[in-house]
């Protein structure tokens, strides 16, 4: 009869393994193989340098708007590094570094931000979905994919990315709820980068953490230092093991920071202070990982310089290839491609009219 206290036995942990000074908790270190550590380091550096180059290209008018990933390399790469090639990645739109890890070419990224849908035809056939722009909506696709994998008896997990802003969307709730109810093998990876354009994390939710939202859905949740690639890897590996064992979904909140603008159309100086950005610069995910690798004698100053140079060359080659392709990519009649499995009668007629219009315009141009 009386009002009684309901004990919630669950708890939320916070995990840091590699701190911002580069000190490592030896007991928690996942002891990743040196080759993987170096591959991750190179991927982080490539992500950062590529962002900087894309920003230059955008400012020079050579590509359109894009969302930079700088500062979030550890959260993205630590997570996808756990996946097997046949596991699924379901991205939002700020996961370029992770997409490239999964096999997307830099050329495809440049071409897409250059405004050409053909970019997707360069992408490898593997199970990585294209970027999804409507915030939070892609999370449900990961639930369907994870459910289908289990239905087929296939040992695959689906990792989906989203941001702190997405946690306000209805689809966040529906995806978390459906995944938990159906025990779908899904990893919900929240890149809490503190800002949804101009809205700070504290105005997005009154929950002290995003990770704790997992408890309400009856799933595991953990908060990690998202700039600590070892912690992200360890938390996501634990989530993947749980999913593969039939233990259902996990919410992993990565606390990180969007070092640049939301997209190149945004000016963050309007809503956040330079001091705040400086504070996060000291927690940079690449800097601390570099120190860790040097202490483990996997990196030297010379090797760091060599990687930096190789990455710049790789980016330059991609820019050259993409710009050459953009100059010659040709006929816009491809807008009619892939509307349906087969063109409908109306679309066939519209496609013919489009081509006739193009021909007429060309003729007028040449007559003039």
């Amino acid at each position: 009869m009386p009002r009684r206290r309901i004990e919630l036995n669950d708890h939320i942990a916070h995990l840091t393994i590699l701190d911002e000074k580069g000190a490592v908790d030896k007991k928690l270190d996942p002891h990743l193989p040196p080759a993987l550590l170096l591959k991750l380091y190179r991927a982080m550096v490539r992500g950062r340098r590529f962002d900087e180059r894309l920003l230059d290209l955008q400012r020079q008018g050579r590509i359109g708007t894009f969302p930079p990933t700088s500062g979030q390399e550890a959260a993205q790469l630590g997570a996808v590094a756990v996946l097997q090639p046949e596991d699924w990645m379901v991205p939002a739109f700020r996961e370029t570094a992770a997409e490239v890890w999964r096999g997307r070419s830099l050329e495809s990224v440049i071409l897409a931000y250059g405004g050409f849908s053909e970019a997707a035809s360069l992408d490898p056939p593997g199970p990585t979905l294209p970027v999804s722009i409507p915030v939070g909506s892609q999370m449900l696709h990961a639930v369907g994919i994870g459910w289908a994998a289990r239905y087929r008896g296939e040992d695959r997990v689906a990792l989906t990315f989203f941001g702190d802003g997405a946690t306000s969307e209805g689809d966040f709730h529906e995806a978390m709820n459906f995944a938990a109810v159906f025990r779908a093998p899904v990893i919900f990876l929240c890149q809490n980068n503190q800002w949804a354009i101009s809205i700070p994390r504290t105005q997005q939710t009154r929950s002290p953490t995003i990770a704790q939202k997992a408890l309400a859905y009856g799933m595991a949740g953990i908060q990690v230092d998202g700039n600590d690639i070892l912690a992200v890897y360890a938390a996501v590996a634990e989530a993947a093991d749980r999913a593969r064992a039939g233990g259902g979904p996990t919410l992993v909140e990565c606390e990180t920071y969007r070092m640049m603008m939301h997209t190149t159309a945004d000016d963050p100086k309007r809503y956040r202070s330079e001091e705040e950005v400086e504070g996060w610069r000291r927690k940079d995910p690449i800097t601390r990982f570099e120190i860790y690798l040097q202490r483990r004698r996997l990196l030297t100053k010379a090797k760091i310089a060599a990687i930096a140079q190789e990455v710049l060359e790789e980016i330059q080659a991609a820019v050259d290839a993409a710009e050459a392709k953009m100059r010659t990519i040709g006929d816009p009649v491809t807008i009619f491609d892939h509307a349906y499995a087969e063109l409908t009668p109306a679309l066939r007629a519209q496609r013919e009219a489009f081509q006739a219009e193009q021909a007429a315009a060309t003729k007028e141009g040449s007559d003039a």
Partner: protein
Amino acid sequence: MPKLTMVQALNLALNQEMASDDRVIVLGEDVGMDGGVFRVTDGLYAAYGRQRVLDTPLAESGIVGMSIGMAIYGLRPVCEMQFSGFVYQAFHQLEGHAARMRWRSQGRYHVPMVLRAPYGGGVRALEHHSESREAYYAHTPGLKMVIPSGPRNARALLVAAIRDPDPVVFFEPKALYRAYREDVPQEEEVLPIGKSQTVREGGDLTIVTYGAMLRPVLAAATTLQEQSGAAAEVIDLQTIAPLDDSLFVASARRTGRVMIVHEAPRSFGPGAEIVARLVEKAFYHLEEPIVRVTGYDVVFPLFARENSYLPNADRVLRTARRLIAA
């Protein structure tokens, strides 16, 4: 040949497709144990189990978004929306993803799913339970929009929708769910999506319609012939998008007089596109302005007034007489 209601005919389609193809999964609210609020999925849970007939949490976006993921993985989900008035909570999944994934991925992924939903008036229901908003889906590139008009074509079109490689929104005229029975063969029968059908031939007037409006149109056409001898040709669209204009354009060129009947609101409704096609392709054959007998541009009234809102045989007949006399 067994005589089936539309509910039974739809159930037959689902049952046979599930039996022959283990990629077909049924999901939605109350579709399992309960067999759906209209019983369209009755018996499927017992036959195929909870692995293939999913009672989902109550969330439309969740149902459609999850279906998209299943379809991307290679399954053939058939999801049920309890009423078409609740699809709006999933509309962004349809418009933003189901309709675009093939294009966005340049053919790498596609979404072969069916969204079934009862639509339309005539069952004395609550608000949000009677609308006819097929135009939203027909206007969305990447979607197909199908509306059957009777038990037999409902079954054959649903089979086609399940096998279609693109996302299909399948509206079921709930007023017809149990209105009458029709011969439906047990053997496989498939009707192509994107094809209209001439259901009554005539040389004096063309009536274009679909869904629940077909029956009052046919009744009016019979009365018209009895009373005045005028023969109306009746064309059932069956698919709203992609719209098959071949039959109604050919018919209009013969009769020169066209009426369009739908329960959807008039402005920007499917009739507007039909008129546009006729102006483009049959203009010089038209003897009279094309007329539309439709719902009005108002919120669908509560049920005490729904019969005043919905087109019926009398309204069609009066309009036909005016059109013939003109």
